């Protein structure tokens, strides 16, 4: 059938569940040959699940997968690779201390080895051939770690394309949020390359930037809560319709609780002057006020996360000063930062925000143990700790069977609420938030946003670092844009006159 030959990849009513959790429900998706299919959705909507099923990392619970019209069943990425399927992950899958050509052929050295000894000239020549064909100006013999992030991304995509030379198949390339860490210029190069390369391949393009999708995709599929919620040819749709399919309802004005935004910020709480970290931050000065949410925008490497690290005490600036409530704050001292009332909610919740194997109660208690002791002995009081935990569970509506449950068993939104409870119990007056909505679904995000408004209303000063521009614009009283370690603009974002994303982006790139 000629029709099915035109479909490179087809998912037919594919489902995937992990225990009681349904990650993907009856998803049917078709990727046409020599086209780019965009896959959009919130975190947790099922994008990564689709990628992991297509690349052989996980087996679907139900449904069929067809590659070039033939039903395919594979149980490992290596088997998927033989059918031409290759994934380019957002966290890069290249080994930095290997040469570029070694990475291109990693795990597929067979044709280039004899009795286990590698023919490096042959491997390098192969990589050169692949790069020439794709028009890449990268020396395959250099060390991978010496390339820029954007170059490495292109190498990884080239690695995916090289499958076409190794196996008698046309590549199907899965790009998992390829632009999230690229500069504008690098993104342009990537898009130009994709447009050229799709003559030789079919591409599944996962992104949460709708602008990317309109730039480079031929078709688009929207996912919500594990189901396909919309499917269009790109010329038949627009951003609003896709957005509605992603969040399941029209974009509401109240999502970021703009009505609760404080109009007049209070007294200065934290004053930073001339903060400099070699190669990361250059002469950063700003003032954070009581009850204010100060947004920090910037691309990866702009210095926005370095600033959060300086405030939390994990990074020591070479010069500059920070005054908190008028008193100087010493650098590089996390314990002192906490003692002075700065609470950090890190982006990496699982490694830095919460102890997964400890209970909800223990996680909440950690910075406040001094308050949870008996009055007369230096011994922890079980009763005080219990009522503390119970109180926060009720007050923040944390959904957990009880306070003893290990936090790793909670959903992302509820775990994040525990992290907030931990700092609220400590009574911190300054919150440093690095991407607090990361990995949370729409509903959980909305609850966290409401919590931020509540904290601001109580006079807590909040520094909000985020990759999510609508979130930054919606929540902040002001936004500082960072580029190459410098503040490039300060944008006022009063509730009645929120700037558009383009205004903020102008300061970032």
């Amino acid at each position: 059938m000629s029709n099915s030959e035109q479909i490179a990849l087809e998912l037919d009513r594919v489902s995937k569940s992990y225990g009681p959790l349904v990650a993907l429900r009856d998803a049917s998706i078709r990727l046409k040959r020599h086209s780019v299919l965009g896959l959009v959705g919130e975190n947790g909507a099922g994008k990564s699940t689709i990628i992991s099923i297509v690349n052989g990392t996980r087996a679907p619970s139900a449904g069929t997968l067809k590659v070039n019209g033939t039903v395919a069943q594979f149980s490992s990425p290596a088997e998927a690779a033989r059918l031409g399927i290759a994934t380019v992950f957002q966290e890069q899958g290249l080994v930095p201390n290997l040469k570029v050509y070694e990475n291109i052929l990693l795990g597929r050295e067979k044709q280039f080895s004899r009795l286990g000894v590698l023919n490096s000239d042959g491997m390098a020549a192969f990589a050169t051939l692949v790069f020439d064909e794709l028009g890449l100006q990268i020396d395959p013999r250099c060390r991978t770690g010496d390339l820029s992030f954007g170059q490495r991304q292109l190498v990884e995509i080239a690695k995916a394309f090289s499958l076409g030379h190794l196996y008698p198949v046309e590549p199907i390339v899965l790009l998992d949020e390829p632009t999230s860490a690229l500069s504008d210029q690098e993104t342009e190069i990537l898009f130009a390359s994709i447009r050229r390369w799709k003559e030789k391949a079919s591409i599944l393009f996962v992104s949460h930037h709708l602008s990317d999708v309109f730039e480079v995709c031929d078709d688009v599929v929207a996912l919500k809560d594990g189901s396909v919620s919309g499917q269009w040819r790109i010329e038949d749709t627009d951003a609003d319709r896709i957005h509605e399919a992603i969040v399941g309802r029209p974009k509401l004005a109240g999502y970021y609780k703009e009505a609760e935004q404080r109009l007049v910020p209070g007294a200065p709480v934290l004053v930073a002057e001339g903060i400099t970290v070699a190669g990361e931050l250059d002469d950063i000065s700003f003032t954070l006020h009581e009850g204010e949410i100060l947004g920090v925008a910037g691309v990866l490497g702009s210095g926005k996360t370095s600033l959060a690290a300086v405030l939390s005490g994990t990074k020591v600036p070479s010069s500059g000063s920070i005054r908190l409530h008028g008193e100087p704050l010493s650098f590089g001292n996390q314990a002192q930062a906490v003692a002075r009332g700065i609470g950090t909610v890190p982006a990496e919740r699982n490694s830095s925000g919460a102890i997964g194997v400890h209970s909800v109660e223990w996680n909440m208690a950690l910075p406040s143990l001094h308050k949870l002791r008996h009055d007369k002995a230096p011994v922890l009081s079980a009763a005080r700790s219990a009522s503390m935990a119970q109180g926060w569970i009720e007050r923040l509506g944390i959904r957990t069977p009880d306070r003893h449950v290990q936090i790793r068993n909670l959903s992302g939104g509820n775990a994040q609420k525990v992290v907030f409870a931990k700092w609220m119990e400590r009574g911190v007056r300054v919150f440093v938030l690095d991407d607090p909505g990361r990995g949370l679904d729409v509903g959980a995000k909305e609850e966290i946003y409401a919590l931020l408004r509540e904290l601001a209303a109580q006079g807590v000063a909040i520094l909000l670092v985020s990759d999510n521009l609508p979130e930054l614009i919606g929540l902040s009283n002001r936004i500082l844009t960072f580029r190459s370690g410098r503040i490039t603009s300060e944008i006022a974002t009063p509730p009645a006159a929120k700037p558009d994303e383009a205004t903020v982006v102008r300061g970032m790139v």
Partner: protein
Amino acid sequence: MSSNAPTSPARTFSLSDWLRHNAISLYPFIVIVVLVAAFGIQNPYFATFDNAMNIGRQSSVLLLVSLAGTMVIMIGSIDLSVGSIVTLAGIVAALALDPFGPLTAIAAGVGIGVLVGLINGAILVQLKVPSFLVTLGMLSVLSGIANMIAGGTSIMFMDFSLTDFVNATVLLGVPNIIVIALLAAAILTFVAFKTVLGRYLFAIGGGELVAANAGVPVQRYKLFAFMLSGGLCGLAGVVLTAQVGAGTPTAGANMLLDSIAAIVMGGTALSGGIGGPHRTILGVLVIAILSNGMDVVGVNSFTQEVVKGAVIILAVASTIDRKKYQFIK
């Protein structure tokens, strides 16, 4: 928000669920019951009060050493020098007994342990050398020093006041050495669960970055953990020297493996953060009952080693929580 349906398990109590979730805590109990039954059927003497006291006497020093190791494993580090601290402290105590008397001997043994712990911890914290390597090196250094001091032979002494004390029975016919070990276990369990120190040690093991982020002075508490471990091993060395009536340069040689096996079997994860000293008591009991039982039923010592190793592997394989390990190396 209604869009985020709770995925929490049902609250209704189910015995099979409870057993599944608590299997790891119950496991050492089950092993102990099975072993006691098996050995008891083979030889009725095994299940007597006298033999129980034997088991206790044989395992008191191991319990002290295992408790020491537990405090370090709780923070996700490891102390491989425990056995060599026992040896060195035992020899120092043996040397100190006759000239300076029992109290000084105890202080010297415990003090040397704390000092070694301080050095271990300082190298870990200041030079950022992984604890595995620091304490592996320290193991060799201390064994060498112990042999140098002792001249390769046992140190004898005339002052038997400590020996008489540890072997005496004051409480209900239970030898003092057992009371000392159990008292140490009780105190450490209290420290682990009822004090800020204990909670911080658990937190560092469960997530060092999280602990640091919450304002815990992580490096200082790591140092404390190693000093605690060293001091307990020093005490174990003094007790051992008192028990056998001499300080010998091979005294602690076999304790490292037995103690790690006991800790892990008890349920303290090698990756840290969960478990605790109370769990280690059970792990030590398993090893002690196994060794004593095989003696009582007359298994030869080479076969004993094979059986003990196999039981440890089996026990650990069936108890470790694989979710805690990202990679099994």
